[in-house]
């Protein structure tokens, strides 16, 4: 789960990181008032879940409160990569002598958290990683022991030579790791971590992604979820524990299992169709889930046909078939369905569906061809 910069700044603040002072506002007038309280000169920053907001004009420096109001006016409501800016951060201006990057991700290859620090802060760190990888220092952290003071000091020494400043950087490195572990983050970074001309270290940016699997033990963070851009369908799917991703095509699909669901989409595309969605119904054959999934898919008026592809392993096909019958009674749709149920109890499933006017298929290839033919019909 992504959280906003200001939410990450609040969490970092709780862990004692030297975060610059800020307010979160939703109106130009409030931006003006916030700027006045900070002496006029502030930075206005759009709060959206996409990168590259600076390039898109979502970050502006204001010299006085009037300019803060005008910038906020322009940024609020702005569209950045398809997302509307609903709120902005009004942050104090920090005088910057040098900028660093510090960040932690879970590394799939080493199966450990990996710390990255760089003296090239304030810029796109992925560009630094691909162009000048030697400027990023990496360190794997033993997840059982955590990060020691000595390891933090060693990392800090790689990017800062002044011992007084390096001690502050090492402290920030330790506290960011504490925030990362304490919040069950999958990513935590400060870019840039700045040093002022007085030699003071400040975090003027914050980014954190949280592991969805761990949200059950972080109610406060779970409550930070920004649902303003979520559709009703996405929310419904999430509530029932189904994975749903909307796509642009006209062939809907309802599948059990993520790998098979992706494969079903891929085959639709390969046979000349366009998938309308990814939907993994999970291991359950609960009739309500099947019905809701079908409602979610057919609520898109572009969808011309739907493929139901279930490989019964533990999920029994006859259970799914009964769920489907129930779903068709509940869901009022003219969209034609192609049903492919194979695996455990597929025979019984066929007899459950025999009385219903449904197109069936034995193999995945056959099912995909049929569902595309239906989608192409009189369109």
């Amino acid at each position, binding site marked *: 789960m992504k959280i906003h910069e200001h939410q990450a700044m609040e969490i970092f603040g709780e862990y004692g990181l030297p975060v610059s002072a800020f307010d979160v506002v939703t109106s130009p007038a409030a931006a003006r008032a916030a700027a006045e309280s900070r002496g006029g000169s502030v930075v206005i920053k759009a709060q959206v879940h996409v990168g590259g907001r600076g390039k898109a004009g979502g970050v502006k420096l204001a010299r006085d409160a009037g300019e803060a109001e005008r910038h906020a006016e322009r940024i609020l409501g702005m569209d950045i990569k398809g997302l509307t800016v609903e709120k902005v951060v009004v942050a104090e201006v920090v005088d910057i002598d040098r900028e660093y990057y510090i960040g932690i991700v879970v590394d*799939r290859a080493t199966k450990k958290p990996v710390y990255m620090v760089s003296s090239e802060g304030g810029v796109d760190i992925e560009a630094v990683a691909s162009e000048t990888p030697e400027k990023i220092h990496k360190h794997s952290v033993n997840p059982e022991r955590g990060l020691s003071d000595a390891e933090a000091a060693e990392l800090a020494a790689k990017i800062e030579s002044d011992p007084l400043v390096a001690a502050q950087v090492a402290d920030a490195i330790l506290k960011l790791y504490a925030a990362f572990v304490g919040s069950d983050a999958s990513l935590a970074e400060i870019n840039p971590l700045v040093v002022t001309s007085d030699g003071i270290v400040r975090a003027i940016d914050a980014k954190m992604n949280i592991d969805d699997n761990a949200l059950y033990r972080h109610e406060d963070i779970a409550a930070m979820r920004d649902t303003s851009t979520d559709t009703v369908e996405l929310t419904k799917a999430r509530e029932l524990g189904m994975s749903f991703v909307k796509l642009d095509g006209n062939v809907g699909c309802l599948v059990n299992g993520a790998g098979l669901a992706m494969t079903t989409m891929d085959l639709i595309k390969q046979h000349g169709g366009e998938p309308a969605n990814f939907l993994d119904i999970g291991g359950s054959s609960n009739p309500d889930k099947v019905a809701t999934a079908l409602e979610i898919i057919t609520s898109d008026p572009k969808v011309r046909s739907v493929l139901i592809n279930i490989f019964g392993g533990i999920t029994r096909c006859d259970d799914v078939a009964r769920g489907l019958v129930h779903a068709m009674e509940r869901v009022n749709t003219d969209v034609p369905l192609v049903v492919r149920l194979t695996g455990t109890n597929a025979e019984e499933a066929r007899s459950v569906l025999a009385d219903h006017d449904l197109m069936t298929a034995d193999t995945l290839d056959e099912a995909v061809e049929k569902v595309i033919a239906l989608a192409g019909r009189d369109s």
Partner: protein
Amino acid sequence: MSIFVNDDTRLCVQGITGRDGAFQTKGMIDYGTNVVCGVTPGKGGQSVHGVPVFDTMADAVRETGANTSITFVPARFAAPAIIEAAEAGVDLVVAISEGIPTLDVAKVYQRLSELGTRMIGPNCPGVISPGKTKVGIMPGWIHSEGPVGVVSRSGTLTYEVVDSLRRGGFGQSTVLGIGGDPIIGTNFIDALTAYEADAQTEVIVLLGEIGGTDEEQAAQFVTEHVDKPVVSFIAGRTAPPGKRMGHAGAIIAGGKGTAQEKIEALSEAGIPVADRPSDIPGLIAAALGRK
């Protein structure tokens, strides 16, 4: 032969008294798996489908000589359960549990590495050596004994492919689901190493999906260390970037982990990539014919 599990597997089911645990225990016993014990704290002394239940893994291993555990313990209690199994002395833990926090899995992996215990999963369907033993939740009846070793990040996609193999007349030495999470105990390279050394396995099927770079690393490894033919399939060619496709690990992040990159890496390593699951038996026949 087979990899990781065989006729010597003596299985303990962690979470045996739960709904899934009890149901799957029956399925494994029916397949012929030697299920010697189960563990649920506080339920010691009971029995499930004739299998004795213990309070702790230490008791279970001491009393029954279990050498492998499979865990159905709910996600929030799974990490300590896996470590308990390893500390009790089993060689292999198959973690079916879905939704364990990633940092917990990182800690578990670290501890198990120190103890020398292998973990398969988490969030996986398990492992089956057809005709010998089933330590997992896959439908046993679609499998049969034969020369094909399968390793996969997915569950039902694996069943789909095994069913294609069945229709194509190819049995399997072992079918292994390694799981869809970002951190997993056993990866493609571990499986490739084991299949390369396994006498029964003549050809390897690698089923990958978007996210991470495990398939690229596997391709590199095959070039350097695997003589047996490998064929593959990658799910997620149409997956949009930045969206998690069901599995926690199946996400194209920062432009990395696309199906296209993986297909290119595999092709460059001389590994044929099937366009669809039903093409896999043909690729296997061609690979075996070349030998």
